[in-house]
């Protein structure tokens, strides 16, 4: 190397590195701050709200949203959007029940087929987005509609088979001193696996590149469409797992039970600081996003707030939090990055 003098602050101390890292994840801090605020509100406002077991139970009951939100987050990071999550969850519910036929012996088969179906839908989404270049919003909306049509044709509104009792009891099972819901463990496990892929492997590195700027990544030798397709497949699989979780939770298959999940996953990811422009945000944000949505609903329901007023409060809180989020993040970060 030549003997030029290094510019100041080139490498940076460990402390500085950490500070930088935190600053880059400001959105994360904010969303966890919001989740914490709601948790405190929950503890204060509802009877028994400070019991860890209760909090764990509530999170466990919403594992299906959490798992589906992981998939949505990954798709958003790839620069896309998945509006087929609700339909895929219903699809998973229908096909897994049809496979299980209420027999414990068929559980593995039911899960495998549902996951395969979810992955397949994800593959179609991914190919439409990356190969046919159809905007993600439309591609996944259309595929979701087709999937919906598909399982209606298949079931004629009347899902076949039934949920295996073993799977049903797993929905309420608790582990680790019987306080941690089994599904919460599964949710965290899915999260850890995906986070490991995103943040500890070279694929994650290249995936973020593909999401942040497909063109630049492509020119650097990244097989962009593979990563995009991968994101949708992952989302389809997460949605299928979530659909199975929902079916296990209710104990019966449904063709419409997950309809509201699509937008909820988007909301969770965005509250967690993930941007729509791709490559911006962290997976961990989705956890805070789900927590925010879930505790808000629980507080309002526990306080017996009238449904109409619940809608208003939920909307207002969602907006209020995003405004706070903007205030906290918006300052100090110049416009160069945009």
């Amino acid at each position, binding site marked *: 190397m030549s003997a030029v003098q290094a510019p100041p602050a080139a490498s940076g101390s460990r402390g500085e590195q950490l500070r930088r890292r935190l600053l880059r994840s400001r959105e994360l801090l904010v969303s966890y701050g919001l989740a914490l605020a709601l948790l405190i509100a929950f503890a204060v406002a509802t009877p028994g709200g400070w019991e860890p077991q209760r909090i764990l139970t509530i999170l466990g009951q919403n594992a299906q949203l959490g798992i589906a939100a992981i998939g949505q987050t990954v798709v958003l990071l790839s620069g896309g959007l998945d509006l087929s999550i609700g339909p895929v969850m219903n699809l998973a519910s229908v096909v897994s029940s049809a496979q299980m036929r209420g027999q414990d012996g068929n559980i593995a088969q039911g899960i495998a087929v549902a996951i395969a179906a979810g992955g397949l839908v994800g593959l179609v989404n991914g190919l439409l987005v990356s190969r046919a270049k159809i905007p993600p919003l439309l591609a996944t909306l259309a595929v979701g509609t087709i999937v919906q049509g598909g399982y209606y044709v298949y079931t004629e509104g009347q*899902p076949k088979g039934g949920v295996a009792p073993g799977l049903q009891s797993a929905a309420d099972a608790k582990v680790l001193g019987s306080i941690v819901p089994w599904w919460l463990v599964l949710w965290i496990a899915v999260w850890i696996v995906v986070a490991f892929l995103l943040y500890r492997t070279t694929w994650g590195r290249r995936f973020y590149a593909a999401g942040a700027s497909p063109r630049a990544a492509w020119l650097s030798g990244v097989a962009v469409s593979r990563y995009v397709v991968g994101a949708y497949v992952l989302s389809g699989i997460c949605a299928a797992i979530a659909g199975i979780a929902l079916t296990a939770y209710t104990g*019966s298959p449904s063709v*419409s039970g997950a309809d509201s999940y699509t937008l909820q996953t988007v909301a969770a990811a965005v509250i967690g600081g993930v941007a729509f422009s791709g490559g911006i945000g962290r997976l961990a944000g989705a956890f805070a996003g789900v927590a925010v949505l879930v505790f808000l609903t629980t507080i309002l329901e526990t306080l017996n707030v009238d449904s109409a007023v619940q809608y208003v409060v939920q909307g207002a809180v969602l907006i209020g939090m995003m405004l706070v989020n903007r205030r906290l993040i918006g300052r100090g970060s110049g416009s160069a990055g945009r």
Partner: protein
Amino acid sequence: ATTRADPTGRFTIGYDVYWLGNSWSTQLAEEFRAAVERNGDSIEDVVYTQSDNQVQKQISNIQSMISRRVDAIIMTPISPSASVPVIQQANRAGIPVTLVAGMADTRDTAAEVRADDIVFGRTGAEWLVRKLGGRGNIYVLNGLPGFSTDTLRWKGAKDVFDRYPDIKVVADAHAAWDTARAKTAVSNMLAAHPDVDGVWSQGGAMTLGAIQAFRAAGHPLVPMTGENNNGLMKVWDRLARSGDRSFDSIGVVNPTWVGSEALTQTLNLLRGDEVRKVNLVNPEPITAGTLDRYVRTDLPDSFWVDTRLDDAQIRALFDR
């Protein structure tokens, strides 16, 4: 009503399937279809449309039936008020309209067949009050705000509860007739108000969710009102056999066979027979004493008991 039969005495009927999103609505349509088969010699053709629970779509569907000049229309109004204009439009075109399992804010219908939602709500509430001896804390599980079924069932129940000052509604929620949402709602209620003596629910799927929530929380079961849903019947049956005394229920029947009844009435109407305009059907509710006669352990949870479908048709419904 006018007779509009073709020379062979066969009619063309328009049937709008308002929704296929849950098993009750699916079985309703199936009962209708079964009745069509039974009445094959009086029916030339049936024009089916589907509304997916969308008001605007239902209006277009009915209008398309009008433009196809069917002899009569059978429909389940998604909105009692929004369906009025199109019912009147059908009348102007000389097409009688029969309502099944729903109502409209108009007198211009030819016939109506449905369970009375107020009676539905009242029946369950009266049973619960009696069961609790007129005092106790209860949870309320409603359907979806803004839908008339929801409003009317709760109205029927509330009138009863209001008469008993010692019955306290300690928690209520709208759980959309959905098991998952009811289960979540009830587990929240249990955490906040563990001191509960009964559950009044607007639907069988929600009652199932409530039972699951009680079990998951390790809370002893309490009396809960329900519906004629086989899933509930099966659980109830199992509990009864296992000797669980804490649980009891009532299956308030919202019969799916109104689908077949509606066809019968409509055909009578078309043949020029005298028909009663409003037919409120509230069959005997299912109780612990009569449970044996209804429960079908061989059929899935999503089946609705008290049906006019024969066994072959039921098999077809679940095996296709």
